[in-house]
């Protein structure tokens, strides 16, 4: 025997299986809490603090009175919980003459959000499907222009779009703002759906064609049901983007449909008026609530969806 081994163990293999005795020394079992592990948790803690700090300050501030805000540190805990700013922000904050808070905008935002998200996802998925499964002439050119367009600042579009929509006669309406969101959502939506569909097996599509499916049937019955992960990703991106949009809603939605962000802007941004930071924060949190809830609920799906869709990049 060459290597030094405890005698008990040396004998063991010969005695077995008659004697199922274990060697005394089994070697060290590694410790669970290695320095690497501690470092990892330290990093996560610091990162979490970095990401949470603004949220904490927002919540603290929203619960303070204005005097407390003026006098104290922004990190100080609220002396006593004061929800009046929340109530004010939601239902009594004034925008010009109407003092209904930001809740009016909430429903407007929903009204804009739902059709915009649905339609822009529909448009992106259909276009992505057409471009990746069907041989369409000039598909690449179309796609390239779309991507290039994604890099233009929105603001440049506003004037020509206004002219265009007033020619069409739907300027300043729900239809108008929804169309705008569909247009601006198209590049990224097409991109992610195209990439996702590029990862789906071509054979599946072929099978459906042999089975007799046409463009729409294959899409509806075969492709769409497989798109759940990427639909979730698309939905999250669009919900966030559309909900947080301000300038498009302001210019195109029309007076009756102004989204919540416009109200938020009215509450938060004044040039000459008093700034009520507590209400601003409350209003902000309230405005961000919808996308936040979406993230909380579907964060796990988001990662999975990207995982499913990004195989091809």
């Amino acid at each position, binding site marked *: 025997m060459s290597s030094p081994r405890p005698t008990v163990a040396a004998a063991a293999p010969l005695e077995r299986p008659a004697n199922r005795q274990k060697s005394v020394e089994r070697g060290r079992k590694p410790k669970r809490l290695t320095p690497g592990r501690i470092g990892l948790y330290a990093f996560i803690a610091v*990162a979490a603090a970095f990401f949470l700090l603004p949220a904490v300050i927002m919540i603290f501030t929203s619960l303070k009175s204005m005097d407390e805000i003026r006098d104290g540190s922004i990190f100080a805990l609220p002396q006593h919980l004061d929800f009046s700013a929340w109530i004010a922000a939601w239902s009594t904050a004034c925008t010009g003459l109407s003092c209904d808070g930001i809740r009016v905008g909430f429903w407007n935002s929903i009204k804009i959000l739902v059709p915009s998200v649905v339609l822009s996802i529909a448009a992106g998925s259909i276009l992505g499907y057409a471009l990746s499964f069907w041989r369409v002439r000039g598909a690449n050119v179309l796609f390239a222009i779309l991507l290039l367009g994604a890099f233009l*600042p929105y*603001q440049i579009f506003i004037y020509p779009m206004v002219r265009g929509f007033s020619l069409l006669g739907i300027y300043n309406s729900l239809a108008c703002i929804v169309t705008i969101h569909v247009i601006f959502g198209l590049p990224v939506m097409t991109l992610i759906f195209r990439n996702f569909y590029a990862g789906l097996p071509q054979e599946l599509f072929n099978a459906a064609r042999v089975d007799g499916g046409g*463009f729409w049937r294959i899409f509806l019955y075969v492709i769409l049901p497989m798109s759940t992960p990427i639909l979730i990703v698309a939905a999250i991106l669009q919900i966030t983007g559309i909900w947080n949009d301000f300038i498009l809603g302001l210019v195109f939605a029309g007076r009756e449909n102004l989204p919540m962000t416009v109200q938020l802007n009215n509450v938060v941004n004044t040039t000459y008026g008093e700034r009520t930071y507590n209400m601003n924060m409350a209003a902000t949190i309230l405005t961000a609530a919808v996308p936040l809830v979406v*993230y909380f609920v579907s964060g796990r799906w988001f990662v999975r969806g*990207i995982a499913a869709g990004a195989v091809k990049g």
Partner: protein
Amino acid sequence: MTTRPRRLRMATFVVLPAWALVLAAYVGTMVWTMQISFTDSKLLPVDTYVGFDQYERLFSSTRWLVSLQNVAIFGVLFIAGSLVVGFLLAVALDQHVRFENTLRTIFLYPYAMSFIVTGLIWQWLMNPGLGIQKAVQNWGWESFRFDWAVNREMAIYAVVIAGIWQASGLVMALMLAGLRGIDADLWKATRIEGIPPWRVYLFIIVPMLRPLIITAVVLLSIGVVKAFDLVVALTSGGPGIASEVPAKFIMDYLFTRQNIGLATAAATVMLITVASVLTPWLYFEYFRKARPRGAA
């Protein structure tokens, strides 16, 4: 021999409206933008052409030059920073840590916040009289300085930090998805070879995540070119013009300063810059090696 029938396939038919839309909305706007940039339009577009006057004016504007410089700094640092932070977060979450769901949400939520808020909060945090500096000084470290938002030299970096705060969650999600897709055998192979994890990540995993990194870079650079809200909310381009960016330049001249000729000239410059970077890259990433597929 039968001749090939000419059919208007549904696929083509479906793509037509997309074409119409792209031509009208995107190409139309681009053409319009360029056209206006050659006029001396003020508040509203007019068609008195002035040649390259607006461009001359543009490039003799210190603010525009500072903006260009800033967007370069911001772009590089923001993209690099978000990628690094996002990647590190993804790696951390990939170590089978507890509360992964909660942590993921914590890292991701800033992406759901509008820039208005991000800017305001970070403005506070980086304000010497209100934020971190004051808090740390109150804890006894008198000489501590963290006044980036009001410091001419550092303001653009303040914007970078806030931007990273907001966007690295998205990168994290993308990267985490990529990490989850890595073959377990690969990890085993590296363990057998005794390659330390950090090297595995750096030399093996990162190159493998290339497609995802590209997606992330596309999304982030869209953000860079359009960077406006964040700057407005955080520094308003200041102190002075220290943190001006092109999108804000365009916005200001479009709406406040009522010179859309100049604004469109600026936009055209941006567009051409982006296009000249993007086009070759798009070609290489998406089309050249695109697997030919698709039905007849």
